[in-house]
């Protein structure tokens, strides 16, 4: 346990698995009070039990539910200091030639509109903090914001879009005189349960694992805890002058070409 985030109240969307769940645990460990959202109630209850965080069943694309999420946090603790806009998905994605309109709209609803709603509601909540408008918002983008994938057009587009969203929101908060910082992080391939299950269910798991690991010159995937550590840093007062930034955390996957 550290006290780096003592006294702070955090919200993590998509907190029931992967990077979100890892971040719930890390923020708790650093002393924050944490609320997290997601669809999976069983996982939500389990993580809440393990970490002492509070689960709220909510999908980021559920517009009407947002007021209640923020009200629950404010009623309980009267403030919001950190928001991690993490929820995202790639179900229904494909190439630009093949993707269905439903697939495209579904991914935009979560990865883009859902993130916008998270940032919007977080700013409105942080604006009313008892000690004035303060806070830190972190958007989970992806290295694919800078290096697009041909067979995941909607994922690539939405992850690029939310980097611009982070910058726009950061400038807006500055213009309003709010001490609310907004940044995006761009992880490489991270070994989440989703990826582990994909590997395990593949007919050639070793080759698939090597394929993912080989995307980084470090020849390994990132760990959930490594991404969570960056979120914790950006959420803390140590990052007090970092706003409008996009931080790549990908084991040099996008730093250049690996050579022969």
């Amino acid at each position, binding site marked *: 346990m550290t006290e780096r985030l003592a006294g702070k109240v955090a919200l993590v969307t998509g907190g029931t698995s992967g990077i979100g769940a890892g971040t719930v645990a890390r923020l708790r460990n650093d002393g924050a009070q944490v609320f997290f959202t997601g669809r999976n109630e069983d996982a939500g209850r389990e993580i809440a039990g393990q970490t002492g965080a509070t689960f709220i069943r909510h999908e980021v694309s559920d517009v009407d539910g947002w007021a209640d999420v923020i009200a629950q946090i404010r009623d309980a603790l009267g403030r919001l200091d950190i928001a991690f806009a993490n929820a995202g998905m790639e179900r229904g994605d494909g190439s630009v030639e093949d993707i269905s309109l439903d697939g495209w709209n579904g991914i935009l609803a979560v990865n883009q509109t859902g993130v916008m709603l998270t940032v919007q509601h977080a700013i409105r909540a942080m604006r009313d903090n008892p000690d004035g408008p303060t806070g830190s918002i972190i958007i989970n983008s992806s290295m694919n914001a800078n290096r697009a994938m041909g067979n995941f057009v909607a994922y690539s587009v939405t992850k690029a879009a939310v980097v611009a969203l982070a910058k726009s929101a950061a400038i807006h908060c500055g213009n309003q005189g709010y001490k609310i910082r907004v940044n995006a992080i761009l992880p490489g391939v991270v070994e989440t349960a989703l990826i582990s299950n994909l590997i395990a269910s593949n007919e050639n798991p070793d080759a698939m694992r090597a394929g993912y690991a080989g995307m980084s*010159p470090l020849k390994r995937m990132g760990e959930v805890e490594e991404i969570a*550590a960056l979120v914790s*840093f950006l959420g803390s007062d140590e990052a*007090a002058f*970092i*706003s*409008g*930034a996009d931080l790549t955390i990908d084991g*040099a996957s996008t730093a250049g*070409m690996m050579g022969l």
Partner: protein
Amino acid sequence: MSAGRLAGRVAFVTGGLRGIGHAAAARMLDEGATVIVSDLDSESDAHDLLGDLADRVGYVQANVTDEGDWARALDHVQQAHGACHILVNNAGIDLTGTVETLELEDWRRIMAINVDGVFMGTKRFVPLMAESGSEVEGGASIVNVSSIMGLVGYAEVSAYNASKGAVRLFTKGIAIEFATKGMPIRANSVHPGFVETPLLKAGFQRWVDKGVAEKPQDLVDAMNAATPMGRLAQPREIAAGIAFLAGPDASYMTGSEMVIDGGWTAQ
């Protein structure tokens, strides 16, 4: 402050007597690291400039443009501590002026300090850091202090732009090199915006002398107005980013860049 995050690590910081370098030394010391700094000043001046850090920080008088000084600095660290886990290539100078009036001599000087210095420090320290890196979680870490001026151009700052841009891409090159070779060293660049340092104050004074503004405060006010967060950075805010990249929490960050500019380049 997370005390002990850098416990057991040895850190070397160039340009460590003032501004960002001084703050980085203080910050890493607070987090438990053993810290050695270098700068141009004499031992006794260094003692005064280090102030309350003087008893806890090692000092090597060294010029980052001098290969012999780098050999001596490495020798000092190796003899005294037998390891180096963190190298902060921070020493730097600025240069302003329209491109047609810049003297080749001045261009070469800024390149020698801002670029050659980073190259030579990296070259000299990497063998030791490759050994030391396997001892610590997240490996050894090189943090190169670039600038937002290494990301975007700025009028009458072209030489500084070129030098800091070089640092940015040099860092990515070595990051990929170390990773593909399995060497336990990460490398990242930090890109501060306008920071309240002696370098900035001296630069502002030069602008005033040139008649660009009436007084330095006018330039500070203009910078504040141009920065979304509405203020200059303090050196300790850059130091916190350096300490993060230096430590185990940044174990998957390499070849990356950390912009600490209050939103200046997001606009």
